């Protein structure tokens, strides 16, 4: 059974692409055949985060327009055997996508026996975002600990309830997960950021994970390597925990408290 997961947020710059890359990689590492699709047509980024930007030949728009085959278009990840990337087109815009076209692509991916399809949504609530969430079975709503991001997430949750295929076909609703990214416990303590409790209270959906603000996220992005592969970093570990929870394991949330610096760290910084 193929499961389709959309990573969405409403607001831009909160970490959707970083999350899509790490979630897809994490699922593939657990042995699931996974594809991650970049829906941000015109603003292609996922290929950079996945480190496959030099291998893009065909893209999602070609596939939607039946100008290329699935086999030609999918880019196989160099690190993991069962991970594939479906890049966006950089030269086109969101109007190049149609529900019928996407439906055809989804059908092909199901026939190719993918376990997971991870859809990296563009920001906003317009056509591109609606296309990305239309076929979703589950949604990972990425939120930063600040009010505008939380409100936009609330809005996108409303759209998931009314515009997804599951809602239109009166099926079981899309399963919602909250992923808080760029969480900085010290700034929460100072009152500069919303706390986990505040966000969960405002959005009222189950918490999938808390990704702490970490320089390793940017470093990994620049290196074209999903941060989940950086097992030393807190962000990488937090994504790995989120994968466990996504697969149904109960795990306590980490990285919510201000870390006390050890003696050596205090001396050597």
């Amino acid at each position, binding site marked *: 059974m193929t499961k389709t997961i959309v990573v969405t947020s409403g607001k831009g710059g909160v970490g959707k692409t970083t999350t899509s890359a790490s979630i897809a990689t994490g699922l593939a590492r657990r042995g699931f055949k996974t594809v991650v699709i970049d829906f941000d047509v015109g603003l292609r980024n996922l290929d950079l985060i996945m480190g496959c930007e030099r291998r893009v030949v065909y893209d999602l728009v070609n596939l939607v327009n039946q100008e290329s085959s699935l086999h030609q278009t999918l880019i196989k990840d160099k690190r993991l055997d069962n991970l594939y990337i479906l890049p966006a087109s950089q030269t086109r815009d969101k109007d190049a996508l149609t*529900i019928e076209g996407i439906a055809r692509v989804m059908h092909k991916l199901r026939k190719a026996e993918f376990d997971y399809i991870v859809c990296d949504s563009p920001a906003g609530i317009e056509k591109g975002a609606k296309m990305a969430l239309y076929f979703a079975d589950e949604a990972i709503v990425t939120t930063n600990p600040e009010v505008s991001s939380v409100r936009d997430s*609330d809005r996108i949750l*409303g759209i998931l309830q*009314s515009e997804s295929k599951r809602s*239109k076909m009166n099926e079981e609703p899309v399963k919602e997960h909250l992923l808080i990214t760029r969480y900085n416990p010290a700034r929460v303590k100072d009152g500069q950021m919303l706390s986990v409790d505040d966000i969960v209270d405002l959005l009222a959906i189950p918490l999938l994970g808390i990704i702490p603000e970490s320089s390793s996220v940017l470093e990994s992005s620049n290196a074209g390597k999903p941060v989940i592969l950086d097992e030393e970093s807190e962000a990488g570990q937090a994504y790995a925990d989120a994968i466990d929870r996504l697969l149904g394991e109960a795990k306590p949330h980490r990285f919510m408290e201000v870390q006390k610096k050890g003696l050596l760290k205090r001396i050597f910084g």
Partner: protein
Amino acid sequence: MRTGATTGHPSAAACVPLATSFIERESNVANEKGIEMKGGMYAFMSLRIDTTDLDRIDAMLADKVQQAPAFFKDTPVVLDLTPLTRTADPDSDESEAAARLDAMALIACIRRHQLIPLVASVVDKSSPLAASVALPLIEGRSRRDSVTDDTPDFSSTAPLSADRSADRSADRSADRSAHWSGSDGQSAEELAMDLSGGGAEIEYVARTPMLIDRPVRSGQQLYARDTDLIVIGQVGPGAEVIADNNIHIYGPLRGRALCGVSGNTSTRIFCQSLEAELVSVAGNYRMLETIPADLRGKPAKIALDNDRLSIEPL
């Protein structure tokens, strides 16, 4: 202003464009059929005109619209001109009333208040009044002449209550039961069932409250027509819940809540935590800033007390 309903009567050619426009909206992109034409039944707000006094109509419309401007803005209405036959001499049909009513000016006036007249319901399509109306026409029935209703108000037609025995209660039961399929997503079957209630001998049919058992999200708008609205969960900031009757929120109210929007001043809002952007009872509203700080974040009841909005802890 209350609701009436138009039916997709086979002879009512005017309804066909309405029906297709709804079908277009309903069919989602994935399984588009191009076009499909079929009969359908849709509830619309009906604007009944009882008087030929344009100034009075203008003033009353302004008053109605002012109570809930956002709700009435761009709302399609069925212009019900059937009552004007009642005031005219039966022998001269509609000619007398028609002579006194400037239909063009009337429609302009309605549009000025940002309502959208779709079709006009008249008793006889060939009458002079009908001929002067620049709208598609449907033939409706006038309410029985014996119904003495001296207060010219905005009421509805009851197209399915042709049954004589029902006419006595048609005014109330049809108005109560007829309802609106546009915004609250009620099914056509439910609507049909509701409408059929108009033909029965029931004085008053309490409608089942609209029950929402999930959070209302930012940007979502819910409207419970002629009934209570119950939300189990929160109403998020930027969300709007509207009802003709009471609103009950079992969770925090962080968005807007407007009860009694059709003018019922005895309606109330109840919520478990008052953090609303705006609360309104029958058009009397208050913003969060004017809500005393000691009432915020606590269970509250909002009601109208002598035209003043009173907020009390629960």
